[in-house]
């Protein structure tokens, strides 16, 4: 992740510090009161697109075990839960605009400090608790740029298209017909008194 220079945004500073900091320990041996889980959320490019509708790092929430505890991120992206019992826990990160996989974290009572974390979505195990979004989420449909095809494909376009076809291509087709046969058909139509378009229009009565 390369820091982007030339802007004085505080979030850019965050990006730089994210890039320069070495990743931290994911688990620390707890006291008698329980264990701690320390981790970090890294969102590449958040600083750049923080002005869109995607979330800010200050709005990110980290949820432990489906809502029993919620914590927030520090400016450098670190978060921690304290007083955790030994066992398997689930951490979920929610930031608007990003999709994070929940993370399974095993806190071992026998080997304090042992790290075991895995993304539940991809089953990828993590050597350290650095959580990155799996993908960005776009909540809106993107409007297709204007194209003749989309206009033609709309019901009205089809109507106009059919009409044009009837106007210009049908006579061409009719020309290819045998003139004799054509005349016979026309006479037949006249004798039967099929109301033609011309008869219906005003002033067409002859």
């Amino acid at each position, binding site marked *: 992740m390369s820091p982007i220079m030339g802007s004085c945004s505080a979030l850019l500073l965050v990006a730089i510090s994210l890039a320069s900091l070495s990743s931290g320990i994911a688990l620390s041996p707890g*006291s008698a*009161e329980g264990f701690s889980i320390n981790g970090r959320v890294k969102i590449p490019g958040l600083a750049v697109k923080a002005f869109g*509708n995607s979330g*800010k*790092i*200050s709005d990110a*929430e980290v*949820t432990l*075990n*489906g*809502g*029993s*505890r*919620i*914590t*927030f*991120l*520090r*400016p450098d992206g670190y*978060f*921690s839960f*304290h*007083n955790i*019992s030994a*066992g*398997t*826990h*689930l951490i*979920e990160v*929610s930031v*608007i*605009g990003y*999709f994070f*996989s*929940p993370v*399974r974290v095993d806190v071992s009572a026998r080997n304090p400090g042992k790290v075991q974390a895995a993304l*539940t*979505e991809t089953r990828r195990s993590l050597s350290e608790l650095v959580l990155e979004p799996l993908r960005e*989420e*776009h*909540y*809106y*449909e*993107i*409007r*297709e*740029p*204007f194209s003749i095809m989309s*206009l033609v494909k*709309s019901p*009205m376009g089809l*109507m*106009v298209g059919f*009409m*044009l076809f009837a*106007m210009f291509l049908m006579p061409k087709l009719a020309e290819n017909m045998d003139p004799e046969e054509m005349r016979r058909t026309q006479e037949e139509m006249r004798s039967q008194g099929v109301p033609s*378009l*011309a008869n219906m*229009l005003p002033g*067409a009565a002859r």
Partner: protein
Amino acid sequence: MAERSFFLFLLLLFLSSAVEFSASIFEDQVGLMDWHQKYIGKVNHAVFHTQKTGRKRVVVSTEENVLASLDLRHGDIFWRHVLGPSDAIEAFDIALGKYVITLSSGGSILRAWNLPDGQMIWESFLKGSRSSKSMLLVQPSVGAEKETVLLAFYGGFLHAVSSIDGEILWRKDLGSESLEIQQIVQPVGIEVVYALGFDGSSQFAAYEINARNGELMKHESVHFSGSFSRENLVVSDGVFVALDASGSILVTVHFQNGEYSLQEMRISSLLGGNFGKAKLLGAKLPHMFALRNDKLTGFLKVTDEGKLETLERINNEVSISDSLSFAEKQRAFALVQHNDNKVEFRVKLGHEWNKDLLQETVNIDPNRGHVENVFINNYIRTDRSYGFRALIVLEDHSLLLVQQGEVVWKREDGLASILDVTTAELPVEKVGVSVSKVEENLHEWLKGHILKLKGTLMLATPEDVATIQGMRLKNSEKSKITRDHNGFRKLLIVLTRSGKVFALHTGDGRIVWSLLLRSLRKSEACTSPTGIRIYPWQIPHHHALDENPSVLVVGRCLPTDSGPGVLSFIDAYAGKEFDSVAPTHSVVQIIPLPFTDALEQRLHLLIDANQRAHLYPRSPEALTIFNREMSNVYWYTVVAENGIIRGYAPKSTSVNEGSDEYCFDPTDLWSIVFPMESEKIVAWVTRKLSEVVHTQAKVIADQDVMYKYISKNLLFVATTSPKGTGEIGSATPDESSLIVYLIDTVTGRILHRMIHKGCQAPVHAVLSENWVVYHYFNLRSHRFEMSVIEIYDQSRADNKDVWKLVIGKHNLTSPVSSYSRPEVKAESQSYFFTHSAKAIAVTSTAKGITSRQLLIGTVGDQVLALDKRYLDPRRKTDPTQAEKEEGLIPLTDSLPIIPQSYVTHALKVEGLRDIITVPAKLESTTLVFSYGVDLFLTRLAPSRTYDSLTEDFSYALLLLTIVVLVGAIFATWILSEKKELREKWR
């Protein structure tokens, strides 16, 4: 053949697009069909920012565990954080003028937030060993310091914490079994921290601690002849005030200069006569304090010599703010008295009681109740004198800013704590009420549509886009207070925790009326009233449209089940309570019955704590209807603590004393007892009463028919092993399993039972038609899962034979009874789901024809729409061609999360608690209302709006097409005339 395949291809195309993006919208459609309102909840503490740079802000903490920074000019939210459910903010303050320091989670978590943007700066965990009061002390900054030491008391330990990084500088154990520290004081400019409290019930204890290193300098204790109550206060820097257990003796301890002297005084000798049991008011005032009994409030001053002087006795209800220092060593505080609909706001100087710095009268809507809390702040007027403004928290949880005798802004924060929601139709548009007002002239209409056309064709300039957006949002059609043809406009009637009922317009979310219910206000008969539910009470028939619909609000006086109930009936148009029932029998369960009387009032059964049923409305007619239908009325109760589900039916009128003819004794019909040691009820859910099912039969790919088992009496119950009810990760896969039941509530018959091994709570479920979908946690794969059970009636499965139908040997017309034992077949399938869920709901439409979508409130407070077809037990990995044509989706192990199908798009419904769906009149469309701290309403069309043109529909393009067509008709006519002429000449 080719035609058919082409048609199928089109169908598939349509279906696939419908599955994937049926909830999606374009970015410029935000706010068209949806609205979002942000709230914070009832403010319990506020700190004004006094730094020059950000003077116009106030930081507040609320009962909904929200920490927010508000704009003082308009009341808008700058930033806000919703803390976890167990993370209530105990205390907070501003340190160094740039950090907000919060002490939360019972006092164990100390956090610092950046004041301008709400970014968390650091988080520190305090360790304690005992339960104790938790306190936070932030020294007011003097000048431009770089660092200040925060003192936090938690769990019997006093912690000194650096304000820069949250590092704990020192901690001092101040505890023994009997010691309770009540106050932490550090007089300004002194390096000594006083920790004051009680040792046992009658010993005052004081510790003097070096503020630099936490060393104990002195320990002092003074004996008191009586016993202390836990009410106490520190007045100015050297006087500790407490009350004795009876509330009649005032104890003051002066502790300045290392000397401790205790004085006792009878309150009646100070405030005269029979003052009764007194309470200390918590406001921090300079050299004075306030006492209150149930009638009056007395102010007492502590003189320099340590004497107590009575200042004033006030008869009215009064709220007092903490004192505020302004100018040079001047301190002031505010006193707010409420008389009728006027609020008298007085600011008094600390050292001069008799002079009011400011006296203003503000008119406040009596519908807001009395003043609960007040916070003051000063500002410098243009003429360099001091002005004061006050934040007032009212009984209905609203927040008002009062300045110069005017209400500058108000926030309806009662809406952050909605208990229940119902809807009412709006009145029909009357003849004479002109509609034309909203319609512009033809020219403007055409111009608007041409602009829209440009928008859809992506030809619009940015200004045009802005105009289009403005035009759409301004559209006054959607906010009219009359019924519309499509049924999009309705009233959402919500009951909030403060006892206030609001009617919100579904079009734009504005408040049409609000009412603070008299029966849900604190009174002598009703000490701690709470609302429970709200129901539609009377829905006038189409022919009686001049009548107003009404709603029923059920509450109870005590938070326990056995507390007496209160009922209130509200006119849904006028917003007035037209009837109420004073505290009466307890209310445990409310059952709306499917019968109405001649006035279209719905019959309701209210079940009390003794399982007796009380019939409402109390009219002979209702009784006649009920007696006629009594043999078909059943109810059940779920006692989760004891693991028992019981079914009842009403017996003839109760013979017990204290009951009347509207009270019915229960008959026990059946009971299901779950073994306590292995199963604990964690969730139960039934079908929504108002749900409509279109068809009983489901035609599957091979022209086969399956009959849905549709019963209003289906109950879904989930139990887990006792270990599996805790939080995720507290049990191992072998220790917990989830068992689900489908139970018929008339007979108590278990229709289906299924075990999910290695799974645990929390379970969220929704039951609709013949299926139930539930969300739970799988401990083996350590992921959330969702399962579906569909239940089909096998006894009707033979009716497929045409010959049987012809001869009449089918059983389709046989009455459906719960007492017959239908053969049912249940199918089930499970899928992984990424997020944890906060709520699950299902869309409901007017006729039930439209396919359904599940609405899942995710952990990130978003609402995801998921097509029901993803949860179909018939899904398989490689469906046949016929099944694909039917719309069966190939089986995948997890449910897809498509960002475009978040109905909340890029918004969050902070603190999401529940999702409600209301059918619109238009079959394809449903209204979705989700609420928590925020409110969000949108319109959904699960299968797209197949029955109406979308709002995007381009009338201009249609007009253009028609013009072109007419032009072409004339052109062809002229051409044909010419050709005919030529033919005739030939």
